[in-house]
């Protein structure tokens, strides 16, 4: 089994490194610094860390003001609260003026687990992708998280980076290089392409391994930059494999599946299946139990692949 690493801890440690390299980096949190792991930055640079209390709307506005005066703010809370609780603040204070704010939200998806519906963010990608000018990244493992954070810090403009609560297995080796806006081929195959983000990348690779034994040769793409999405890679995958399955820890509406379907419909229609949460809220439970209940396992991907392959002409 590959090593499992916490993306939140990776985020916290990377922030400290970035803070050492660039004095303009400041960090904001909304009373969750022990969960988002911004606490590491807070201990290292107390005067550059602003705990805004349980007031996410205010935090977003303060971050925008800091960005408007040449700071590079990283603002963190749970993904249900940003963008969910402060959507209009993100829209008018960050997106419209295209300010250099980096929103890094943790606890994305249902793998949050036992805390239940109120803490499981299943709409955040739809909300944030709807905002013009936002770059949206969903890293698949700790190695990609570090690099995405570094790229966000070095690239002007509003960014949203979504990471999850549990530890996730490494899918990359240390020599991996993240390219903003580019899909990554995780596995070559010719029968069908699985396009995945976040924790579903590891599940897609597991599914591809199992399907090989059943005679289906899966191509696997990771799409770490959800917006702007890599249209060229999607069209190429559709042309070369003739069928697509998308996999994300998010509602079916407005996330990866919607974005991929839009590209395919316009440029290269092929059969497509969606692994995502189906228009419902999840409940309390262990992360693995929830992923199983709501259809987000390698086995679900395998079934979707088998179904979509049958639809190929």
């Amino acid at each position, binding site marked *: 089994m590959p090593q499992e690493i916490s993306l939140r801890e990776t985020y916290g440690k990377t922030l400290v490194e970035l803070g050492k390299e660039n004095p303009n980096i400041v960090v904001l949190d909304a009373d969750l610094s022990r969960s988002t792991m911004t606490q590491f930055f807070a201990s290292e640079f107390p005067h550059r860390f*602003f705990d805004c*209390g349980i007031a996410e709307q205010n935090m977003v*506005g303060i971050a925008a*003001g800091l960005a*408007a*005066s040449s700071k590079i703010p990283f603002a963190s809370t749970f993904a249900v609260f940003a963008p969910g609780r402060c959507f209009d603040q993100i829209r008018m204070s960050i997106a419209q003026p295209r300010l250099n704010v980096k929103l890094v939200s943790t606890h994305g998806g249902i793998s949050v687990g036992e805390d239940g519906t109120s803490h499981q963010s299943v709409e955040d990608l739809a909300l944030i992708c709807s905002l013009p000018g936002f770059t949206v990244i969903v890293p698949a493992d700790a190695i990609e998280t570090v690099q995405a954070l570094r790229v966000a810090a070095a690239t002007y403009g509003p960014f949203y980076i979504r990471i999850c609560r549990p530890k996730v297995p490494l899918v990359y080796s240390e020599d991996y290089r993240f390219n903003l806006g580019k899909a990554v081929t995780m596995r070559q195959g010719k029968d069908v392409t699985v396009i995945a983000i976040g924790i579903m990348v590891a599940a897609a690779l597991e599914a591809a391994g199992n399907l090989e034994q059943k005679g289906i040769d899966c191509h696997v793409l990771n799409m770490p930059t959800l917006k702007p999405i890599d249209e060229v890679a999607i069209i190429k995958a559709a042309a070369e494999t003739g069928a697509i399955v998308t996999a994300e820890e998010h509602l079916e509406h407005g996330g990866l599946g919607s974005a991929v379907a839009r590209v395919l419909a316009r440029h290269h229609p092929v059969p497509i299946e969606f692994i995502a949460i189906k228009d419902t809220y999840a409940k309390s439970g262990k992360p693995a139990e929830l992923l199983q209940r709501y259809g987000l396992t390698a086995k679900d991907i395998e079934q979707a692949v088998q179904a979509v392959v049958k639809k190929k002409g």
Partner: protein
Amino acid sequence: MSLPELDPSSATLADNKKAEVFLSSAEAKPLSLKEMKTIAKRLRRHIITMTGKAGSGHPGGSLSAVEIITALYFKLLRHKPSDPQWAERDRFILSKGHAAPLLYAALAECGYFPVDELSTLRQLDSRLQGHTDRTLTPGVEMSAGALGQGLSFAIGIALSGRLNSQKHRVYVLLGDGECDEGQVWEGAMAAAHFKLDNLVAIVDNNGLQIDGWNRDVMNLDPFSEKWRAFGWRVIEVDGHDLSQLIDAFKQAKQVKGQPTVIIAHTIKGKGVSFMENKADFHGKAPNAAEVEIALKELE
């Protein structure tokens, strides 16, 4: 019927090269109270003409804040109209973004852009949007219009100024109705918590919001006590008295360790008889006949 033109013989500050020196230097000869009153009247005339021509906009809450903006832009702010991004400038954040016509009038009179451009308000491709847009208009610090967001934005700028050991001050203008928004009080708590004595909020306390009097729609009282309880120094003034406003801003500069709020008691629609204390003129432009009467009253 054509709209009355502004008197072309009334020279704007932008025409006066010395204005720039005054506006960016504390040592230059300040404007007299009389000169400032003349400017205030000119801003009122601009508001009427602009919104009249546009056929929409928010004259009521623009007129109520004229003296506040005059005191700031023509007396207190250190700013350079020729260099809107000057790093050491004092920041003015218009949180009640619907008072955009007033801010545009002041910026034009200061020389940020030609006064003629005011007539493009709300037109397609104009730099003067219905509500402020920091990406388009020189001198506009914040994209506003969704109420309740300006104080938080101002806090961010004030924190940045303190981190950089900069001396500039941050001013943010809120509406009283705007203070219904919960985010305002999140910001009020935070500004006091962060001890931001480089931050001054001004409330244009005209008593009216769209649906009527504040006390009937959503009672804010006891208003000054609320701010005090949140940890702010509170100064109450007649918001149409330039001397009182200037004194209040000077007092605020002496306050250490806490932010200051100036509660400026004002009259919505001030200066135009049929607009005064009328919620109707919050978001309704005067028609051509009303423009004519209003400009006559503002001669």
